[in-house]
């Protein structure tokens, strides 16, 4: 199992001598322009499709509201190539898997979020099944 290191993206990138907003691994795509920090969202839903593609993965979720109404959401994540190198394949997350996403919604109001955290229903990290985070870490 890989060591699940959690540190703020900005701190990590600063350590690498890269600054957000200038050239650097995250600056190929201005997330702040696509998603709205003032629109936090928490979604719980079933995976209907997993697009393990570049430059960003997309997880398609079916979210059912308390009235039983289903809506489709798309969750943007990272490049999957490192996951492939760790043995993840298109079959690793079966359709129907329930996941919890905390993120920020698209500026244009569409059912799209950038997934700040991606977890299975039991709190484990989606791709790495790591131990749940210590309480208070969020």
């Amino acid at each position, binding site marked *: 199992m890989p060591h699940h290191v959690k540190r703020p993206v900005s701190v990590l990138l600063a350590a690498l001598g890269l600054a957000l907003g200038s050239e650097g691994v995250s600056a190929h795509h201005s997330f702040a322009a696509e998603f709205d920090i003032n629109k936090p969202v928490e979604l719980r839903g079933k995976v209907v499709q997993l697009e*393990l593609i570049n430059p960003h993965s997309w997880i398609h979720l079916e979210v059912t509201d308390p009235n039983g109404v289903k809506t489709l959401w798309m969750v943007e994540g990272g490049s*999957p190539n490192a996951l*492939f190198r760790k*043995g993840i*394949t*298109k079959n690793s997350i079966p359709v129907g898997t329930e996941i919890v996403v905390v993120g920020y919604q698209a500026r244009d109001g569409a059912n799209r979020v950038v997934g700040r955290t991606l977890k299975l229903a039991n709190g484990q990290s989606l791709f790495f099944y790591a131990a749940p985070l210590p309480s208070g870490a969020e």
Partner: protein
Amino acid sequence: MRTIVCVLALIACTDRVLAQHADIPRTRAGKPDLSGIWQALNEADWNVEPHVAVQGATEMLGAIGAVAPGIGVVDGGAIPYLPSALSQRDANRSHRRTEDPEAKCFLPGVPRATYLPYPFQIVQSDTGIMIVYEFAGAVRTINMKSPGEAPVDSWMGVSNGHWEGDTLVVEVSGLNANWLDRSGNYASEARRVTERYTVTDADHIRYEATIDDPSLFSRPWTLRMPLYRRVEPGARLMDFRCVEFAEELMYGDLRKPGADKAASDKPAAGPGK
């Protein structure tokens, strides 16, 4: 007498062997050397089936945008579509101006990458083979040692190669669904493609690709064509980063109303430039 017969037999054998080995470049290990810059010279990318000249996807380019006629590259002439697969082909054809992956500068996949009307370069070493295509900077590595499987499908697939005599046989799988030409002929992600590259002389390769896709076709079918070496001095792959030529097609409707199209995408020119 026996000696004469033996000598004649020996000469005959050697002559046969020499004929097989004549005229084609070989690596130190004795394998045919496919290294070089190659290009197909036919109308397969317009339509792999035999076809007459017809109007292209837009009249705006006049005869330049027309579908050039072609004698076809498919064994037996027609692609053996299942009846259920025809409506998608027809839909592709009617929407080809905006939906042809080539128009969008998508990676062309296999086998279409081979017969795009642009050169590609085969880089053959002692251990492996890489093919670099001019169009969209497509590239693939042929695994010659340890066959691999894809964790997910990709545009250029996973290629596992081995030699059968003097023919390089490449099994390609893990391909995304893609089109086979500009006329809407297509294949699914379930397809397995078997390519055969046979060097016939110093400047020609005989290329065959068999497509096995039971979800769309009633049987595996084969297309075949010669590939020609680009022999002119200075032949080289150039930059065909076609993404910038597809952006207006794909994203033009998202331009800021009133924004000046000509002003975009030019660095500010400084003095002396």
